[in-house]
């Protein structure tokens, strides 16, 4: 079915909206935190990368489903 391609494309786009929002919020909070307490910037950066990586991991689960739909 051609609809599978449509579903895969829409799914990839929608999951990217979620991931973008999530990573954007993390980035904003990290920048605010660093501006407020520059001496804690190292710890904040590590926590930021961990959280961003976890969001990325969840996004890849969504993208794996999209790829499965497209390759069906």
């Amino acid at each position: 079915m051609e609809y599978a391609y449509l579903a895969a494309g829409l799914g990839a786009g929608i999951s990217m909206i979620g991931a973008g929002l999530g990573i954007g919020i993390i980035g904003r909070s990290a920048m605010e935190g660093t501006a407020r307490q520059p001496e804690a910037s190292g710890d904040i950066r590590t926590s930021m990368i961990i959280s961003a990586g976890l969001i990325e991991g969840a996004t890849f689960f969504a993208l794996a489903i999209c790829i499965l739909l497209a390759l069906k």
Partner: protein
Amino acid sequence: MQAALRLFTLSTVFLLSVALPGFSADPDANPKRIDMLYKIADHNYLDFKPIGKIELPRIVRFDDQWHFYINTTSALNSGDGWVDEYYLANPDRIQYKDDGIKVAPVSYHLVRADGAHVQFDASITSHLMWFAFSGFLVLLVFGRLASKYNTTTRDGLLPRGTFMNLFEALIIFVRDDIARSNIGEEKYLKYTPYLLSAFFMILFMNLFGLMPWGVTSTSDVMITAVLALFTFTITQFAGTKEYWKHVLVMPGVPKLMLIILTPVEILGLFTKPFALTVRLFANMASGKLLVYSIIGMIFLFADMFGNWVGIGSAVIWVPFTLFIYAIKIFASFLQAYIFTMFSALFIGLAAADHDHEHDHAHEAAH
């Protein structure tokens, strides 16, 4: 401004030399399609494009027996009933090498002539070869570093020269910022060797993919799965009694909730290495696809508006590709760092052996 102009001119000249032969080739042999997935896929040869190819050994199991061939050509000419998949579709286009005696492989995809099923294909492939090269490079670098520290620096272990300084900076970074901060002061030295090996293996594999003729081994899901399997195994062996108690019977939770919580926790054991696998694989593979997609825009423009528009649009696409390439160098380091850091985090979570009261007291002290 002048530098940018020079870059544009250079890239256009470079593109002209690359793009023109593609246009003049006959359409039957070279259809106007770029198979990007074929380009990032695993192959049974090492490609050194204008010079030639090095075919790799084939190890195949069929008829309940293992068969070894030194390369694909010898498998095709062995008389064991192998045929290149390309010849099945084009029987009139058989190519020969070595004065017309030996049949030459085209697609390097061996199938049985009688249509029988191949039981197991354990052939050496290009991704495996570059994985091994990266392993040898890690051994070489670390062996050399160790001997240098043993011989040249008796005076307080100070690094000397570019080689030692470069690697000492990275090693100290992995030890202090990845291992110590995630695993904890008591146990981090036990796991630092693994984390260092993983970091440098992944880093070298990623950077090999950016070299001419290089292949990104980490864009293969099997390679990253094996790396994640190591982390998974080490995490389980690092697990303390406390860790297993939290996984199997979470303390302080109503008994009825355990019916839901325990399967979720056990599932969580396996989703962690899965996320590691897919993160590294997807990042490296999508980087390669991105480069091919942007370079492919030139051919798309040439197809839609004519060859000269396509060549002219290279002024936009080639610098854009160079920009993506620079990002890929950064991503090589970042993905090696993220893989190692998540490995350290998982090991640290499993190996932490303080109980809750101690934990809270520890946090309050800070």
